[in-house]
């Protein structure tokens, strides 16, 4: 039991924006009753719900391959064991223990991996079980699933739905994720999808059909989080039209467009590169069915790791760096390559500016979420700096002076004077993502919510304030105090379990016999073995 007294509370879901209040936590949850216990004097401090990262890459095959790929990125970035914590290494792709501790140190208590191939779901769960502190889950790659594509081609909409539900159950996943729909399949024959209406060879369908079918399935299954889309043509000049097409293709259905920064480029490949954030933000502002997370790029060395195989190859061609590609049978793919974002590079500077434009141009903070697409745009450890860029106009202008001026001048960023308020920061870092994820007891401090609370000491330097909260409380336990870990804990794994017609199982089994190398029986993840602290989030019909 904990009492947090006299803090300046930011709880946007409950309409509280900086009021001085007391908070009580009882049995791990926010309570209306003061049941005593440890008292934290939060006078003069900022109190917020624990942070929620809705899109990062922290577990599973491509993350681990990226770790393996880059010993040079870990050397001299180690953390030693303590009596309470395990050791690990950092760099752009930290080890599991390091990931959990670091999120906690930053006041984040929930994170979702954004792209897990179902065939490797077991692997993702294993890693999440070694990721301390935070609650977690993952989105399941379905945008290039050959069973789904076959069923779409056959016009069997129902079967797509039943299969998607079966797959979510089998993998213990949380949401439907599309990555370059159709394009990853095409990459397996060294091609790619360039428009929403390209034909996916061998299946006689188009990316548009995949997007529409799975957006519909997400709604029909009443999944807590709508379809999560990484559009076609990521990173390619002129891709904004594809992104807008994708938004339109949703035809009013809910959809979350992820790392939108990477999809907001004007110009022509090899010739010109510009920002289309302003035009696109306008579209998003006018369409309440859409939400985005930004995928902010920050300057420095990082690792690009993506389920988008052809993108990985393109980046490797640009950088000449070492390159991993994995084609995953019947389902997905991935590409990995180190990348360094440089301030003076006109493309990189434009990308940096576009991310900030998105934050500053979307009017409704509930529909824009702070992410770096960790580690693609930058490490999640840079969130506090991004917060400062959003809250401190002068700092932003100072940073703008360091970047390629010609590139910057072609964006609207120099004209944007907006500064985020603490309440808006609370929205884009916890309340908003929790709501978009459909997590009812996350992202707020109302009675019954998880006892995840972050308490910051005020500091004129917002980066410093957000980088090192004074206290981080997880499920009612004070885990971080003055930057030190005070306890050892492992969080829950969120998943969904939508119903399906078991008649589909025979067809799936046949498909496995024909095309998979693992047996149907050996595919589903054993709940009791791989999810030691499971929490099924209900699908509300």
């Amino acid at each position: 039991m904990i009492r947090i007294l006299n803090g300046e509370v930011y709880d946007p879901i409950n309409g509280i924006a900086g009021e001085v209040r007391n908070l009580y936590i009882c049995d791990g949850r926010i309570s209306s009753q003061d049941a005593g216990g440890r008292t934290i004097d939060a006078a003069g401090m900022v109190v917020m719900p624990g942070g929620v990262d809705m899109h990062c890459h922290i577990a599973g095959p491509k993350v681990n391959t990226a770790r393996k790929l880059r010993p040079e990125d870990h050397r001299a970035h180690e953390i030693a064991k303590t009596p309470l914590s395990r050791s690990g290494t950092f760099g752009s792709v930290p080890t599991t223990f390091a990931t959990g501790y670091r999120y906690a140190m930053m006041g984040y208590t929930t994170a979702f991996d954004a792209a897990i191939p179902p065939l490797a779901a077991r692997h993702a769960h294993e890693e999440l079980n070694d990721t301390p502190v935070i609650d977690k889950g993952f989105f399941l790659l379905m945008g290039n699933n050959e069973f789904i594509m076959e069923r779409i081609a056959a016009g069997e909409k129902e079967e797509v739905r039943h299969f998607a539900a079966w797959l979510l159950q089998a993998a213990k996943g949380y949401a439907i994720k599309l990555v370059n729909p159709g394009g990853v399949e095409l990459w397996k024959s060294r091609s790619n999808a360039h428009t929403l209406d390209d034909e996916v060879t061998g299946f006689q369908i188009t990316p548009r059909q995949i997007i529409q079918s799975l957006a519909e399935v997400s709604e029909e299954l009443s999944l807590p989080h709508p379809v999560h889309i990484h559009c076609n043509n990521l990173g390619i000049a002129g891709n904004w039209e594809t992104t807008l097409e994708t938004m339109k293709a949703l035809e009013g259905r809910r959809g979350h467009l992820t790392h939108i920064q990477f999809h907001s480029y004007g110009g022509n490949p090899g010739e010109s590169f510009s920002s289309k954030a302003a035009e696109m933000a306008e579209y998003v502002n006018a369409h309440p069915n859409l939400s985005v997370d930004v995928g902010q790029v920050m300057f420095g060395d990082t690792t690009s790791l993506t389920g988008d195989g052809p993108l990985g190859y393109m980046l490797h061609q640009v950088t000449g760096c070492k390159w991993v590609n994995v084609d995953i049978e019947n389902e997905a793919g991935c590409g990995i390559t180190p990348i360094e974002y440089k301030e003076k590079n006109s493309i990189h500077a434009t990308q940096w500016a576009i991310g900030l434009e998105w934050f500053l141009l979307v009017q409704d903070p509930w529909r824009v979420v702070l992410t770096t697409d960790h580690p693609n745009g930058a490490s999640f450890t840079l969130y506090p700096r991004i917060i400062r860029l959003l809250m401190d106009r002068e700092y932003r202008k100072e940073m703008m002076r360091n970047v390629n001026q010609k590139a910057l001048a072609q964006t609207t960023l120099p004209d944007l004077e907006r500064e985020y308020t603490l309440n808006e920061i609370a929205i884009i870092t916890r309340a908003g993502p929790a709501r978009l994820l459909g997590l009812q007891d996350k992202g707020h401090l109302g009675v019954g919510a998880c006892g995840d609370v972050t308490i910051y000491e005020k500091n004129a330097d917002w980066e410093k304030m957000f980088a090192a909260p004074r206290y981080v409380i997880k499920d009612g336990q004070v885990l971080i105090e003055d930057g030190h870990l005070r306890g050892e804990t492992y969080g829950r794994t969120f998943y969904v379990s939508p119903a399906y017609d078991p008649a589909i199982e025979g067809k799936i089994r046949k498909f496995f016999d024909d095309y998979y190398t693992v047996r149907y029986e050996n595919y589903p993840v054993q709940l009791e073995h791989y999810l030691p602290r499971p929490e099924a989030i209900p699908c509300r019909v």
Partner: protein
Amino acid sequence: MQIEAAICAFCGCLCDDIVLTIESDRIVQAKNACALGKAWYTAHSRPPDLPAARVDGKSVEVEEAIEAAAILLTKARYPILYGLSSTSCEAQRHAVALAEALGGCIDCCTSVCHGPSGMAVQGFGEPTCTLGEVKNRADLVIYWGSNPAESHPRHMSRYAVTSKGRLTPNGRKNRTVVLVDVRSTPSSRFADLLLTVRPGIDFEILWALRALVLGRKVEPAGLAETGITLAQLTHLAELMKNCRYGVLFAGQGLTQSAGNQMNLSAAILLVRDLNQFTKFAIIPMRGHGNVTGVDQVLTWQTGYPFGVNFSRGYPRFNPGEFTMVDVLRRKEADAVLSVASDPAASLPAEAVQRLTEVPLIAIDTHESETTRLARVSFMASTVGIRASGTAYRMDNVPLFLKQALTSIYPSDEEILGRLLERVRELKA
């Protein structure tokens, strides 16, 4: 009783279509298993004939052996944990924690099998795929320095050669199979093209192939020692460039021959170059049942796949410095814990010598050279037969191995878990 879709964890193929017939707690039949798998199932379902734990050759309670092992290990100041290739990821997770708690080194059989592949990946990356893509798409399959007929007997039928898939409906007929080796093996008869090369010149051949694929000039003099003509190589280069989906399976013939990691670097660069023209993948022929899994576990816990040192309380990586053979040869190790491996029978004699000089603790599922040599030894239940747990196939696909028979010994996971707990107490 019958168990369908059991998974054979002997080799890196992890064939998951085995049908087990069980009679009075013994596996009497393992349908679909190869000779290696049948031997594994039959041998590992024998009734126990050894005490669960021994200290100095005397049978003791497991608890007593845990105590003895924990004391030996905590006293050591440069202990090394080794093996882990034939156990579950759950056990491997404990092993890494134990190495960390001890401030020792941890290395797995990778360092003496595909460690060079790992180092090459760290240098250049890896275009690869899962075995299902080979089954569904590959029209050109190359085994280089590998003898799957004897090392991975079902590799060709289940995954790479005769299997049928989406773009390979006629199986073998849809594929060209190339074998590159220094000798003729039982695998040779499956090849359409057999290149017999001189030993130790794989790098030169791969390097020349790269040049041919890239359309560069090749000095024929540079091929003089290889046993292969420029014409033969040109033909292979053309096959590679013109296939739809090619796969190069890299065997220990590449990793263990002169050049080691550079041979694999050359192979990876060749495959990378080929991706300018077509789709091409490389897959290392990982040997033991879960040697791939230990790389995974070590990597997610430490950032590095093998050869890790915790002397400073955090992980560091350096093959040649923290790897088993080196730590033994230089006589640095002052205690050794071997898990699910038989270093005394599998490492060079000069390295094995050190095992006889320092406290040796062994955990294995059967008696071995190492358990016989050990001061403290534990018998453990075999994962996939008498214990359950996770294993990763050679293409990194994770599978859950179910227990088929009753447990007669504790599992590696349990033994390591208890050892870890005791070591932590002693260290506190």
